[in-house]
């Protein structure tokens, strides 16, 4: 399982080591953290991890010419893609964290907006373990019990134009999209950190590696 080259895209802001190590623990044989567009272009699987602000991340992806190879790889049905935390938000059409609104990768239609607390018990950033209600036919959540806890650390969320691609939802700040899956294409996003979500997160990563 999980032969081929799994690329973890490094845009200079984040914790690529944890994601790379977790993918290895989950059975990926050849994991390469990289900021080289040529390596991204020959990936068999792409993981875009996430820490940083939307603006800073897009700035670096652009400066390092990483946007095109990511778009091209995920445009075909060949290369499975997983965006985690900020990495999922970057899949959107636009986002505003860390500055004025700025275009994203545009892999899914939607915008990245700030979490808005409904009451004094909801604090932003949303930090910690929270439940994800997954769609029954989800690929990512296969074999993971209902409403399992995953680790979140974020202030913004992806508001989808097409709710049909939502595969997981979390009830916080009025509810937000916790995971996405593009029907018929191996394109996935997780608002939480699977690499830090212990057994549930690792199961999800194995599901991705098998996709």
């Amino acid at each position: 399982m999980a032969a081929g080259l799994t690329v973890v895209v490094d845009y200079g802001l984040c914790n690529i080591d944890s994601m790379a190590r977790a993918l290895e623990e989950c059975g990926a044989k050849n994991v390469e953290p990289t900021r080289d567009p040529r390596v991204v272009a020959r990936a068999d699987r792409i993981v875009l991890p996430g820490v940083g602000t939307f603006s800073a991340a897009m700035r670096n992806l652009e400066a390092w010419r990483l946007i095109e190879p990511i778009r091209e790889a995920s445009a075909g049905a060949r290369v499975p893609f997983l965006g985690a935390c900020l990495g999922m938000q970057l899949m959107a059409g636009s986002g505003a964290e860390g500055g004025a609104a700025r275009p994203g990768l545009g892999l899914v239609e939607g915008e990245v907006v700030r979490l808005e607390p409904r009451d004094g018990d909801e604090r932003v950033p949303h930090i910690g373990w929270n439940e994800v209600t997954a769609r029954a036919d989800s690929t990512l959540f296969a074999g993971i019990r209902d409403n399992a806890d995953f680790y979140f650390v974020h202030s913004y969320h992806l508001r989808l134009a097409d709710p049909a691609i939502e595969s997981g939802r979390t009830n916080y700040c009025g509810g937000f999209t916790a995971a996405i899956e593009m029907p018929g294409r191996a394109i996935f996003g997780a608002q939480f950190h699977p690499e830090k979500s212990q057994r549930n997160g690792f199961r999800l990563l194995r599901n991705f590696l098998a996709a």
Partner: protein
Amino acid sequence: MLKTRIIPTLLLKGLGLVKGKEFDSGRRVGAALQSIRVYNLREVDELVLLDIAATPAGARPDFREIDELADNCFMPMTVGGGVRSLDDIRDLLAVGADKVAINTAALATPELIRSGAREFGAQCIVAAIDARRHEDGRCEVFSHCGRTATGRDPVAWAKEVAALGAGEILLTSIDRDGTMRGYDVDLVRDVAAAVDVPVIASGGCGSYAHMAEVLARSRAAAVAAAAIFHFTEQTPREAKDYLAARGVKVRR
């Protein structure tokens, strides 16, 4: 529902762990790596790793050691100690920290919180606030691992760092640290009521009842504890059983 986090704190000084008492001691408690492996097996909610030697020694964080520890840490980890610049934050995130705690440098240069949040996101910038309660009941923020008085009030400073962009506050009572006499509940209550970001209560935990008490009487989002886990038979998992029985939402 968002769960209340139970967070073991590891104090790092060179290659071993130490147990602090009122921020002033250095009893070794074994290799940090070993502790992290145990916490991995126990699937704890999160870890806080603080290098208490860095700032007093004027040193940068020990990136190589943290890299090694992080490679073995499959749980969220906040790292602090000696963080003074955007490069320090970037390098800690790169070697595996999920959040970076800033204390003394934020007091000297509050702008570091703002620029850190702008570049890396508020959610990974943790403002660590160490406060000591004086005999007259007044609390004061201290820097340099509790050695230097700042004249600042912890509530006012917490509001200021939150406004600057800190995404979380790690609030430690210096006079309770390592005593196992319980959290400074009033301090936690006042700070958590004053800000909208999550507050981690730290310093003084000696029993599960202390955790329940601070959670019942303040709006802390998490409790951190060190001595109770390192020096007694008490475990994060039992803490959760105890708290769950008292209506606290914890992850199990």
